């Protein structure tokens, strides 16, 4: 039950993009088309889950053991960069099709602040192994959900008759704000 609550909490209530405002750069930049948004979501899901787990392991078995908790940010950046690199190589070999789809998005994830945010929040909340796995997975599912929703909305806006001063980035930001308000409606659904 508790694990289920973590999932609900990260996907809807404490959504990383719309409620905690992490990972906004890919949210704004890769949401022009639904196809690319789906590609980015798949890549992020993969990397976020993997880096959440591996940064948990690095923290528990290396940083805590030697009393180096203050180095967590730099250590996690290292972990994330390595995981992303590894994922890129692996995907390229294992599935050239998927590599074509994900393309440039894979290396871009390195700079996605949601990835580092999940790793740091895992420590802050004293998560266990399973919990940090689910936390990372839930965060990426939430990210994907919001990204794909936003991309679909933007595709519609592209053909809509938007008043001239609001065209382009302005209407996108307003849309994001409205979505964020809508997601605020989930708060109170669960408390963790």
């Amino acid at each position, binding site marked *: 039950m508790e694990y289920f609550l973590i999932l609900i909490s990260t996907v809807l209530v404490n959504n990383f993009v719309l409620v905690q405002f992490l990972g906004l750069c890919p949210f704004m930049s890769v949401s022009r088309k639904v196809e690319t948004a789906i590609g980015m979501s798949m890549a992020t899901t993969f990397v976020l889950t993997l880096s959440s787990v591996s940064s948990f392991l690095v923290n528990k078995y*290396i940083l805590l053991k*030697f009393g*180096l908790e203050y180095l967590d940010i*730099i250590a996690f950046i*290292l972990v994330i960069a*390595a995981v992303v690199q*590894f994922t890129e190589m*692996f995907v*390229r070999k294992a599935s050239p099709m998927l590599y074509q789809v994900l393309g440039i998005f894979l290396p871009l994830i390195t700079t996605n602040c949601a990835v580092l945010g999940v790793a740091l929040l895992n420590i802050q909340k004293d998560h266990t192994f399973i919990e940090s796995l689910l936390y990372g997975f839930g965060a990426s599912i939430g990210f994907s959900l919001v990204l794909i929703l936003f991309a679909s909305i933007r595709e519609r806006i592209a053909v809509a008759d938007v008043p001239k001063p609001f065209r382009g980035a302005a209407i996108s930001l307003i849309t994001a704000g409205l979505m964020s308000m809508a997601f605020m409606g989930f708060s109170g659904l669960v408390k963790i």
Partner: protein
Amino acid sequence: MWIAILILTAVALVFGLVLGFAAIRFKVKSDPVVDKIDALLPQTQCGQCTFPGCRPYAEAIASGEVEINQCPPGGDATIVALADLLGRDPLPLNPENGIVKEEKTVVIIDEQICIGCTLCIQACPVDAILGAAKQMHTVIVDECTGCDLCIPPCPVDCIYIVPVKQDVNDWQWPSPDVESVPT
């Protein structure tokens, strides 16, 4: 402090080893034809073929999208070599991509006129122009490939083409004449 440095170095080393291993283990063989074409191109990365560098042009040739006559720095020798490799007919150089230069040239910037707009820096494919915004720029002559791509963006026309005279310091053996060998 030493512990911290040691641990972090060790962690980085382990990741480096894993990545190095992965690079070998998961190596993807690229198209050998592309490699061969790329080896024949002059690697000036000048972009006159309309592709962003020699390798993308090689890939486009391999996929049959473009003709082999779009490389001005390579000139006729490259076209003949490509035609030989791919079994196509040699074509004259496409004048839309540029003309073959008789002698090697580089560009120089007249620093008295330069206003430091950085436009030429952005145009340079080999990062041979040194400078910053509102500072005068200069060309690193050893790096300049003579592609002249920096000349059109300059708003004050302060970039000139100068021929390079060969002297004992930069003389090289001439490239061997490529002749098509009947097979």
